[in-house]
């Protein structure tokens, strides 16, 4: 009964905590931008100029941050997009090729060009390894400068071209500064909205747990392309402002050192943070001003900082500022799932379709991992898959969830055949899974990790998130509520705000189950969920799985703990060397001579 009274008090406390949390998040930004706003009043034009430059750089870095810090794509040549934007605006406004454009139309065209080229440069990231992508952005940066030098009729070559000029009141140093500051604030707000949306979480998941994102139905190409569009547009817009600030641009103004500054500002700031890279940008912009004799060595200093951050403090400034996660956690905490909450979460009506595997065969080279396997996963039944190591259990699970394409045979759900080798198509059919080694995002909170599971449940588009429109806010409320519910189901709600890399191994296993439940699955596949759990925890896990089944979910359980298997399964398949050794109810399997002698012992 105690629970009831506290439940009534929760809404009030929740909103209060919500307000306090958002205040803590917003305050540093208010302080920084507030301080910036008084710079022209208390100092001279020179410092206003420096502050303008920092604001313009941040405009670019805030977009790039989503690419580098969130999605983890090492784009090192973003000065190319700054150059592109600067020349596009300058050339369009001066009218030396086409009739002169109005200023803001030129900025619009520049942003559009930036977005297009952002995607073109980003394309390799969709298919290639990290280093290849870094190299292709570097190559792009090299050729853009060469083009600016050589295409004299348009860019003025080495002589350069005049930058665009703003109309009053923005044509003074102070005026331009406030305009750029406004853009920077807007950029911060928009990227923060994305960062705190399902898109931002999906980006971090792509960075740290790419394999898991596929099972959750997140499309990496779609996510990356939209983020490249955004970052490219931001960068080119910043380029227009940069040209305005310079009043006259030559290719020399866009040295690769600038690219290095943008890139390193993010890494020094810390990945997956917005405040960190903002501070990083400010520090790197100001550093040469305070150490005038070192100005020539500034790139060297940046490089030293980068090396130091990589080797000594991979978390960057953001990790240093993360006080909340330094408080010790309660050491003797127990995971107590509350299966009773499940009906609230899994409201989807039970389907009567079955996942059917027919004649699946799959070899890796000469090794036959699966050899003519038939298997059914039926709603509201727990199907155990056991067998010695290397018998093809996990491989079977990977075939069903689309990570492996079998050479022959079909996986179908009811009447539809599931496309082979396409893991990202499974989530929409309500097929969820966990992994043998938990694949979570260590740097995100437990709650965020679970919310990642519901990414495809959101309704709003990226643009709606960018501008924090109602559908975005509704998505966020829905995802957070569902995620807290899922955390209560698995018994981790008290750890919701803790960074996931601080959790114990057993807690990560339950975290993955909570994330899988976010899909409101019709089928749940668990890959050795009991590995590394204590006896008590295994018992609770068993209870939880039974309750999940009770909601009409078909469960496939790959396990080594024979007790758990025989305790909760309705049907068991024993694999050996990729073939079915035995199949039947637990009591039948217990009687099966070969299984007993080969596997169960006795």
């Amino acid at each position, binding site marked *: 009964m105690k629970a009831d009274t506290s439940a009534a008090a929760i809404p009030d406390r929740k909103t209060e905590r919500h307000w306090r949390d958002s205040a803590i998040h917003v305050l540093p930004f208010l302080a920084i931008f507030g301080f910036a706003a008084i710079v022209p009043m208390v100092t001279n034009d020179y410092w206003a100029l420096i502050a303008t430059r920092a604001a313009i750089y941040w405009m670019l870095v805030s977009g790039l941050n989503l690419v580098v810090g969130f999605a983890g794509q090492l784009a090192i040549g973003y000065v190319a997009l700054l150059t592109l934007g600067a020349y596009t605006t300058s050339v369009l406004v001066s009218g030396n090729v086409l009739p002169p454009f109005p200023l803001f139309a030129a900025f619009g065209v520049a942003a559009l060009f930036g977005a297009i080229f952002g995607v073109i440069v980003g394309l390799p990231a969709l298919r290639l390894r990290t280093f290849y992508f870094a190299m292709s952005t*570097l190559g792009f940066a090299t050729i853009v400068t060469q083009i600016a030098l050589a295409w004299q009729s348009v860019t003025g070559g080495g002589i350069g071209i005049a930058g665009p000029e703003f109309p009053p009141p923005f044509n003074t140093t102070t005026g331009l500064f406030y305009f750029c500051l406004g853009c920077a604030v807007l950029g911060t707000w928009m990227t923060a909205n994305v960062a705190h949306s399902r898109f931002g979480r999906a980006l971090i998941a792509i960075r740290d747990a790419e394999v898991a994102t596929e099972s959750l139905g997140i499309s990496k190409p779609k996510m990356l392309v939209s983020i490249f569009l955004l970052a490219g547009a931001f960068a080119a817009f910043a380029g227009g402002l940069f040209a305005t600030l310079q009043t006259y641009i030559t290719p020399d103004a866009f040295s690769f050192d600038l690219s290095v500054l943008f890139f390193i500002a993010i890494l020094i700031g810390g990945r997956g943070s917005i405040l960190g890279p903002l501070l990083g940008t400010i520090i790197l912009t100001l550093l040469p001003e305070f150490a005038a004799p070192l100005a020539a060595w500034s790139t*060297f200093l940046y490089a030293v900082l980068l090396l130091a951050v*990589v080797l000594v403090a991979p978390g960057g400034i953001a990790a240093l500022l993360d006080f909340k996660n330094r408080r010790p956690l309660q050491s003797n905490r127990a995971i107590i799932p509350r299966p009773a909450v499940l009906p609230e979460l899994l409201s989807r009506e039970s389907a009567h379709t079955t996942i059917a595997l027919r004649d699946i065969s799959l070899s890796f080279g000469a090794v036959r991992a699966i050899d003519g396997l038939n298997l059914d996963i039926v709603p509201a039944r727990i199907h155990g898959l056991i067998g010695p190591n290397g018998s093809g259990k996990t491989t079977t699970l990977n075939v069903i969830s689309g990570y492996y394409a079998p050479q022959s045979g079909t996986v179908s759900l009811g009447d539809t055949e599931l496309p082979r080798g396409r893991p990202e198509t499974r989530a929409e059919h309500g097929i969820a899974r966990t992994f043998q080694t938990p694949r979570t995002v260590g740097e995100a909170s437990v709650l965020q990790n679970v919310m990642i599971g519901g990414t495809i449940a959101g309704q709003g588009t990226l643009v709606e998130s960018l501008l924090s429109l109602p559908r975005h806010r509704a998505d966020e409320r829905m995802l957070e509520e569902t995620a807290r519910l899922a955390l209560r189901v698995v018994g981790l709600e008290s750890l919701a705000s803790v960074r996931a890399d601080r959790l114990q191994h057993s807690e990560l296993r339950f975290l993955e189950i909570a994330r899988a439940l976010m899909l409101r699955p019709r089928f749940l596949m668990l890959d050795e969920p009991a590995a590394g759990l204590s006896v008590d925890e295994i018992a609770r896990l068993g209870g939880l799985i039974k309750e999940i089944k009770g909601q009409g979910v078909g469960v496939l359980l790959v396990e080594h703990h024979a007790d758990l298997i025989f305790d909760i399964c309705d049907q068991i398949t024993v694999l050996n060397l990729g073939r079915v050794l035995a199949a039947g109810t637990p009591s039948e399997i217990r009687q099966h001579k070969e299984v007993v002698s080969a596997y169960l012992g006795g």
Partner: protein
Amino acid sequence: MLASILASGLAVGAVYALIGVTYNTMFSTSRVMSFTAGQLGMLGGVFGSLFVLRLGLPVIPGLIATLLCCAVVGVITEILAVRPVLKSLDQHLYVLSTLALALMVQQITAIEWSTEPQPFPKIFDIGPGFLDQKFWLPIAACAVTIVGLEFLYRRTLVGHAFVAIAEDNFAARALGLPERNLRMASYALAAAIGGFAGFAGGQLLLAFVANGPLLNFYGFVPVALGGLGNNRGAVVGGLALGLFQQAANFLVGGIFSSVAVFVMFIVVLLAAPQGLFGSSSARRV
């Protein structure tokens, strides 16, 4: 025109090929691609010019000093930027650490040497036209290096050890091979190859700090096209890239030749992510 495309294309292609071999040699023992590869090519030219032209050393000692200096840079790369991040290869931290080191090398060169292209000595005064050193020396250097590497990998014990580590790091360590020393040695070797490329191509590319990032990119293209770790692919890819670039240079002019190379790089990689001679990737789950 065709003759000059061939001559300059093959010459510059040989330099790209050797930088590609530098990438491969570093990669083979560490599974790491380093941004210092192109910088070493740049350093080969700078050190060569420094020792032979400024300090007046004879050619052979000058070359040896150049290669030694580059080898030192290679060893520093291994100690500072590669070894500390090998533990977590999947986080791709090496991209950042080697980039940081490459930037330091470049900045030091820019400040202590010059930001303008400096002349490189003429070593062989044979004659005009295509007998000029700048056309044949890089090709000769490339041939010598490839033959030397083949000999090393096939005939010597150290070479066998390199191959063993490249094939299977864990098994090689289990056999008791000194993996760390071999890795350092391979970085020194790779760096010397990069330096040799810069030295041989010195007349063509000059002792110029901006060659660093340029060679980084153009040296990586053959690696990407030929497949990572495949030296034969790198040589074929390098020469083809040189010819392609020079042909584009003559046909459509300077700017568009670099655009053409970039577009080719992207298109080929999107079509064949493992390179034209590469093998397919491992499993992920």
